[in-house]
């Protein structure tokens, strides 16, 4: 008697609510242009645009947006690692590769029609150096000064010979910005942008970003007039929105399991893009018990990367056996060669040598941070714990800290074994080795790793221009890495773009940046 009354009441309440809202009605139709393409495409993301100022933005998703509303002197050809001219038509390099001269296109204009000249480039770069924000080091570490020879000629004077300077030039700190940007302060909500294919039409922080075609763009006009980016707090609401038809594209980042089941369902196209994003364990080389290289090696040996990929990531990632990602030149599977996967016997042997056995097991504290790398992180920690404990000689305690604390602990070297991840700043083996393995440069990792041989190899690799020569040094470095084990590479991420079947033209290169201007949606 009691229950029916109650449930009847509840049900009728919902019915009322739904009928009421149903009567009000929703909108379904998207306006189309005469070209036969939909006028707008809605992209959902769980990332955030932090700062529309390239002088301060230093996260992947914001860089992606900046790449769509701005352009540098050079850019990657969509879908490749090949560098092609952008705002600069051509360039020259001095003998010692210390002086780089760029010749700008004469038809480059900002979104509001203001012509873009060499002085704008110089102003923008000097602005980055002056503000000295988070990503400023990408300029300040390399560039001595920059000059405008005339309205269309820019000259960079570098501190050292840098073989990969063009790769650096593709990063947002080098993008020329509209004169509206405050000259000496961070301008987070500035929507004037640069000279990219799109311009920002509307910007409501953490809610939506509307991009419209830049009418003054020198190049080919994008097929889609309007790109709307919706910001979601988490993957599940984004997925709901996708299935609800609220968004056309679900981009960064759905969960592995979402990808798996969307694939199974088959209603959406799932586009897979290899990514340069790597995950690895840091081992503290200064503190007991991971101070002992044998312990570190044992930990490396006991890991089963395939199991991790299957259980935690449902096969949406690749196992990684080196810090240099798969597919990048000079990569070798050093850890696979040296330890293999789930090599419990080897791990036990090494631990025995280090003085641990079943009665005196190795006690490990494994740290992770719960939100920064998405919610698979806790599962990753659980599976690692299980793999290590399978040896019977290791006991693992899992600990976690919020990102702000976590980074502090890491920098101070207070954690024993901890999970971190790396998005490259520029696509070169150097960016996957020097920050980790070179004394001083790797201070932020908190592993305290230092090996003079390694330092020497990395310094040499940086200055040599010839790629084959450099590759040899990086191979050497990877072998030492596998021997010393200050880091254990685990997996390499892949990126997934899930789109409604009508959406075409998804092109994402190894730089992992989604260029919206190739997108179109069939009406």
């Amino acid at each position, binding site marked *: 008697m009691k229950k029916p009354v109650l449930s009847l009441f509840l049900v009728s309440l919902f019915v009322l609510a*739904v009928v009421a809202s149903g009567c009000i009605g929703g909108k379904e139709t998207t306006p189309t242009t005469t070209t036969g393409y939909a006028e707008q495409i809605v992209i959902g993301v769980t990332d955030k645009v*932090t*700062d529309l100022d390239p002088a301060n933005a230093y996260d992947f998703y914001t860089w992606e947006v900046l790449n769509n509303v701005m352009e540098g002197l050079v850019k990657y050809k969509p879908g490749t690692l090949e560098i092609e001219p952008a705002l600069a038509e051509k360039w020259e390099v001095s003998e010692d590769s210390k002086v780089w001269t760029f010749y700008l296109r004469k038809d480059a204009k900002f979104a509001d029609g203001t012509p873009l000249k060499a002085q704008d480039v110089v102003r923008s770069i000097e602005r980055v150096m002056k503000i000295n924000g988070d990503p400023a080091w990408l300029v300040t570490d390399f560039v001595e000064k920059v000059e405008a020879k005339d309205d269309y000629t820019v000259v960079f004077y570098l501190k050292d010979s840098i073989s990969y300077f063009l790769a650096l030039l593709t990063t947002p700190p080098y993008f020329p910005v509209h004169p509206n940007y405050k000259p000496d302060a961070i301008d987070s909500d500035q929507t004037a942008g640069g000279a990219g294919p799109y311009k920002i039409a509307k910007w*409501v922080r953490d809610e939506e970003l509307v991009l419209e075609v830049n009418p003054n763009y020198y190049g080919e006009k994008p097929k889609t007039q309007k790109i709307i980016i919706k910001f979601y*707090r988490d993957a599940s*609401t984004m997925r709901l*929105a996708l299935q609800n038809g*609220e968004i056309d594209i679900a981009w960064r980042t759905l969960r592995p399991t979402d990808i798996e089941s969307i694939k199974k369902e088959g209603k959406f196209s799932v586009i897979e893009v290899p990514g340069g994003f790597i995950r690895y364990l840091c081992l503290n080389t200064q503190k007991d018990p991971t101070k002992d290289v044998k312990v570190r090696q044992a930990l490396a040996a006991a890991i089963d990367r395939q199991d991790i990929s299957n259980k935690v990531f449902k096969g949406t990632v690749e196992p990684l056996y080196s810090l240099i990602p798969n597919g990048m030149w000079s990569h070798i599977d050093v850890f696979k060669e040296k330890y293999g996967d789930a090599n419990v016997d080897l791990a036990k042997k090494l631990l025995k040598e280090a003085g641990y056995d079943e009665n005196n097991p190795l006690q490990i504290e494994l740290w992770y941070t719960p939100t920064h790398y998405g919610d698979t992180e806790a599962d990753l920690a659980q599976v690692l714990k299980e793999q290590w404990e399978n040896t019977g000689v290791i006991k693992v305690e899992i600990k976690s800290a*919020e990102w702000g604390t976590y*980074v502090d602990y890491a920098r101070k070297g207070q954690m024993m074994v901890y999970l971190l991840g790396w998005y490259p700043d520029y696509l070169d083996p150097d960016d996957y080795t020097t920050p980790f393995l070179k004394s001083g440069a790797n201070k932020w990792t908190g592993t305290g790793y230092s090996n003079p041989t390694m330092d020497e190899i990395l310094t040499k690799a940086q200055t040599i221009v010839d790629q084959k020569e450099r590759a040899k040094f990086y191979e050497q470095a990877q072998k030492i890495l596998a021997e010393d084990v200050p880091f254990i590479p685990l997996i390499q991420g892949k990126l997934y773009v899930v789109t409604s079947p009508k959406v075409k033209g998804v092109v994402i290169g190894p730089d992992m940046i989604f260029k919206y201007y190739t997108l179109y949606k069939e009406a």
Partner: protein
Amino acid sequence: MARGVGSYIIIRGLMIIPTILILYTIVFIFLRILPGDPILAVVGTKNIPPEQLAHLRAMAGLDKPLYVQYFDYLFRMIRGDFGVTLAFPQGKPVWEYLKLRFPATLELTIFSFTVSVLLGLITGVIAAKNKGTKIDTSMRIYSIVAYTLFIPWFGMMLQYLFGVHFHLLPTSGRIDPGIDLQRITGLYVLDSILTGNWEAFTSAIRHLVLPSITLGMVLSGAYTRLVRNNMVDVLSQDFIRSYHARGVKHWKVTLYALKNAFIPVITLMGLQFAILLGGAVLTETTFSWPGMGTFIVDRIDYRDYNAIQGAVVFFAFFVGLISLVVDVIYALLDPRVKY
């Protein structure tokens, strides 16, 4: 009389100040006693040299002694300045964020509040009128069940049912993408009415349905209970019986009873509003609602001191304001209250 009310409001308003100070102090202390700071959270795993780190810290004013930081921020607040964000993005006025996020929460709270009060009144009066019967028991069980509904769970069920399964209502966000709505107050429903944008209006309302039912339903339990008990109480009082004895019509007596029963409910409303804002965190999380709750949760991850302090103080101020309004309404409605 009018002047009395005026000064009452002012003095009652002044009492919000200690509340704000206390909460600011608590939050300040909790944020600083433990490791981690916003600069590191931003820099994260990037390869930034220590000098650059120190520079960034100094820029944010984090190199100063704690008491200086405490009073600096306090004096800023007095001038109405909540400082700038310290992480992701840095240097953006916290006030800008509050202006952006707060209306979202306010809109959600207002609708949820309405849902909860209406539900509570209806169920409470039904229960009281049928005191001691099975209907009464059902309503009481409803109040307990509603009170113990776990917001994310309930929200998910609604999302699944009305969003995914029946495809009736949007499950997240505040408005359909691509609808161009001029932002005036930040309350989308209000803005769309002000600008006569009916497409935006329906869209905003549709987005509000599920979250406000979730939150409103959970909070209605307390009202059901209180309205019922007050109503039972009032109905048993002599003056109700004497209304009947004087031959006053039945429905009128019910109305008078309701008015009397409603007065204590007003007091609850002030307190409920605080709970409502708390519940909004979970609701906002579940429905991807870009409000204050999610803002605070996000900012905490980055140890964004200024943003958290600012948000908490702002919240405290708002809660104080609501309880002030409630008190004033109470004083105006109940002739027995003196001010």
